[in-house]
């Protein structure tokens, strides 16, 4: 009787899911300009808003080990000005147009975006094409941004409690691959670099054949295509060879442990397990495992470690999605008076239980539901739709995944979750860091 009910419920859920998935398909069209610029357009006229994004397929992993921080530094320079946009005007122009502008740099890509009232579409195209074609990189801009980036580094990494965690984790987890450093890079290399090196970096990577232009929102596709032609068609294709590292990081060969002393009050434990690259079937299973381990207050780690034993103030885990094999991070902050080792044992215990006993059918259903909700939520805004379309095109070779990637999650089985836990969450496949307060 019970079994039947459950089966019925599951079938019902599946059915309603298929209905809702069909309900809302994100339509888009895509094409290439002659110079190699890939264009993706999504029309949605429900609100007079347009998101214009340019994603360059360059991140910190394309940097030389003695020139780290270049891609992120370039992000700063891209706001400095172009031949036709005077220095310092970039932000003001967008502000005056009633819009928002920003950018981010990851290990794999750099993403620039404007969100504007839709009658300002042409403005955004002009601005993005200007920085691709005409970016001015001079010593004034470089000097200014050198000091700004230093401030950024000291604020966000060096002087923030636990701010160096991700950097330390990657430093310990990679020895050969450029994931060894973070996009923020080292101040010393930015200081050492010559002006010409920045100019060359721009000339190499910030070219139409290494970029994806995505426009989402209140547009007319035909008119938009014309405007794109107008501003981007005459930007020459890049000639320099694009460096795409093919470095394979060897397996860890056993657990790596270290202690970091930081200006913190409460100790923290960080475990980083090596996992496959994003898009790999196991990466979907790992993401779904995360929900069971630490997604929400009913999750295993939250319930056992935060709620019941009260050993941790917070515990969470998440896969760090990267284009090359990446990391699965587990992060916990100890409660007052709890030692790092004690917290780590509690974390290990939860992982062990998943490995030894697997997960229940209800948990499996829960993680599927959570995945579905987060998939739908991730496409709620024009700016995120644009970001996702570019991401799927560049790293998965299929922008259509914006509608179908959920199927890959739904293919994951209960056994898969147990298997990936066994396969990846092993002691000899991890880096463990203890963050301890600097002695008083």
């Amino acid at each position, binding site marked *: 009787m019970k079994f039947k009910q459950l089966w019925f419920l599951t079938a019902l859920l599946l059915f*309603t899911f298929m209905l*809702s998935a069909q*309900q*809302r398909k994100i339509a888009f069209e895509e094409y290439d300009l002659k110079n190699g610029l890939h264009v993706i357009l999504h029309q*949605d006229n429900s*609100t*007079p*808003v347009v998101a214009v994004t340019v994603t360059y397929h360059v991140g910190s992993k394309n940097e030389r080990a003695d020139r780290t921080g270049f891609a992120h530094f370039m992000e700063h320079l891209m706001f400095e000005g172009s*031949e*036709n946009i005077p220095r310092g005007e970039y*932000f*003001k*122009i967008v*502000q*005056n*147009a*009633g*819009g*928002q502008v920003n950018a981010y740099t990851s290990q794999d890509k750099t993403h620039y975006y404007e*969100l504007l*009232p*839709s*009658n*300002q*579409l*042409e*403005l955004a*195209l*002009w601005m993005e094409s200007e920085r691709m074609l*005409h970016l001015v990189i001079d010593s004034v801009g470089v000097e200014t941004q050198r000091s700004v980036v230093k401030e950024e580094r000291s*604020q966000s990494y060096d002087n923030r409690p636990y701010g160096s965690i991700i950097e330390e984790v990657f430093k310990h987890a990679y020895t050969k691959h450029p994931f060894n450093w973070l996009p923020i890079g080292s101040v010393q290399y930015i200081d050492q670099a010559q002006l010409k090196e920045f100019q060359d970096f721009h000339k190499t990577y910030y070219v139409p054949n290494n970029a994806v232009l995505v426009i989402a929102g209140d547009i007319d596709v035909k008119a938009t295509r*014309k405007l794109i*032609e*107008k*501003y981007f*068609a*005459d930007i020459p294709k890049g000639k320099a060879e694009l460096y795409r590292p093919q470095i394979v990081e060897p397996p860890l060969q056993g657990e790596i442990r270290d202690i970091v002393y930081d200006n913190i*009050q409460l100790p923290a434990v960080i475990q980083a397990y090596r996992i496959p690259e994003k898009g790999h079937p196991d990466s979907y299973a790992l993401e779904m495992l995360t929900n069971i381990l630490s997604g*929400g*207050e*009913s*999750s295993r780690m939250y319930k056992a470690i935060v*709620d019941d034993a*009260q050993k941790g*103030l917070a515990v969470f885990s998440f896969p760090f999605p990267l284009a090359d094999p990446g990391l699965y991070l587990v992060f916990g902050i100890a409660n*007052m*008076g709890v030692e790092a080792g004690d917290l780590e044992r509690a974390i290990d215990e939860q992982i062990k239980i998943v490995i030894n006993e697997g997960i229940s059918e209800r948990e499996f*259903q*829960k993680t599927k*539901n*959570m*995945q579905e*909700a*987060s998939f*739908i*939520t991730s*496409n*709620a*805004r024009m700016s995120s739709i644009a970001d996702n379309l570019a991401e799927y095109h560049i790293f998965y070779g299929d922008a259509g995944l914006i509608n179908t990637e959920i199927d890959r999650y739904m293919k994951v089985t209960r056994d898969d979750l147990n298997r990936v836990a066994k396969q990846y969450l092993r002691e000899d496949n991890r880096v463990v860091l203890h963050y301890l307060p600097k002695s*008083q």
Partner: protein
Amino acid sequence: MTMKKIFFTILAISIFSAAYAQIDRSKMPEPGPAPQIKIGEARSFTLDNGLRVFVVENSKVPRVTYSLVFDYDPVFDKEMAGLTDITGGILRTATANRTKEMIDEEIDFIGASMSVYAGGLYASGLSKYTSTLAELIADVIINARFEEEHFNRVKTQTLSGLMAGKNEPSSVAARVNNVLLYGNNHPYGLNITEKSLENITLESCERFYNTYYKPEITYMAVVGDVKFDEIKKIVENYFGKWERGLVPKHSYPTPMPPKGVRVAVVDRPNAVQSVIRVGYPVDLKPGAEDIISARVMNSILGGGTSRLFNNLRETHGFTYGAYSSLSSGKLVGSFVANTDVRTIATDSAVNEILFEIRRMQNELVPLNELNLFKNEMNGNFALSLEDPQTIANFALNIARYDLPADYYTTYLQRLSAINENDILKAANKYLMPNNVNILVVGNASEIAEGLKRFSSTGKILYFDEDGNEYDPAKKLKAAPEGMNADEVIGAYINAIGGEKNLKGIKDVSISAISEIQGMSLNIDTYLKAPDKYRMEMGSGGTIFSKQIFDGTKGTVTSPMGEQPIEGELLEDLKFQSVMNIELYYDKYNIKRELKGIETVGEKEAYKVEITYPTSKTETQYFDVETGLRIKLISENGVTEIADYREVSKVKFPFSIKQTSGPQSFDMKVLSVKVNSKLKDDLFKVN
């Protein structure tokens, strides 16, 4: 065929020409015709019990969000400040039908989220769970159950947050600014403190919940891929049984700006940055006639890349950012300019803030500058409409603040009509550079002098982290988060040699000397583990008095003869006789509590209060830097301890100064001997 070909050629040419038409890149493109802003509709209904509900249908994404606002008047209860927050914090934990575990599980299972706080609730999920989510919300709000376990946890978390906040200059500034802006007699001026938190009981939370969480003061907005009729049915079904109650009304005198310029400092001796807040309460109600010009005025002064930002960051490089806010409120609003600057730039930064405020009042704003901000606000209004929640908020505001129904549909018109004179008028009405509180959280010894020139009285007021004014001569500050009495005592034990070495001590003989009125006094003390004690005082070979404790009995011998020590005195002596009692506080049921950090002489010291089972207390001070005990206050007086020297791997103080009332007793230790195999006979009590 030909037709097709010709068509193709034309198409090709047009593409060709479009691609290679000479474009003038030097010209910024003109915007297209302004898009029509359509503000979605919110429909509403009211349940019989008074619950007002607003529904915004938007099928773009198959999601639903519920937001509830509990619109009760702020409650003023000084003794229990924080009661509303704690109550809000426990609300989601248990109901008459569900345990916390069940609630967590049910929310997570459908991939939804729900958070409850003192003033409201927010929940979101996929729209196929619209009804499930409504049922859960109703259960949490209507049938809340108050359990000790969750109450304690919320209290502990609040306490941790409070402690952590005391280390965070910006949160210290926020707390003290509340007090400065609204005063001690207004609910907005109340901060949670350790003490008020202690006063809050589970019963008081339950009482508060039963009194204030009622449908007639609650607004609910439901937004997303839903249908009005469906929501009406669902809400009636789950919230219809929510019972009315008479929610008490409260009113308070409106806080006024200070009479002149008040300068307040929260001292953080090690700070390298100063957190600056310049502000005062403002009588600005939501929907006020000139509120849009007031907002544009504030944007020009301190919203985003504005005058304060350009002056303090771009021109002077004092800071990473400088902003101001002008907020409206049903009871009272506020103006606050804020920035964090390098310590050395503190008074210059305050000066520039006041300069920019006055400039707003004295000069007409240039048209291009005005338009920049109007355009930005115009655009942001349009962008905000992408989120259907905005429409719900509009409807809620109209209802809560009694705004005209077309308030938001005419917003852009009113914005566009604003001119330079409106800005000048708003600046003179809402900016009050001569009636401000200047609050600085920073290193007082470096900044106080420079700030005096701004103060109307020429004086600086000092406040602690809770917003209590104090005399800077006597000051206690909070210990860092995570530090507790046992950590301090542990550090002390390590500083004097560590547990192992201390436990290695079987006996100690200390010989000391003191000068009293020209006469030298010998004090010899003997201790034997675990708890034997003997002290002799004398001069020139004559013993005046001696005290002995053998582990159970004690005697004192004076020129008046030998007497047993009994009662309270014996209890005291018992503890005094234990060798290194710091190692055995738990065993002897001695409580210890870290009170904070105080300055002792030149040094910062942890202040630890020791409470003996006899309920006698003793305050001990431990040097923050070295961990060593440097001072002790008991009912017998003050003891200052210094000149630690190592003997057999353990540090002993060689200078002990005791002050009792007007008398002072200065003891110099001549020698310390460890493990000289003292005989039990030495500690014999007849």
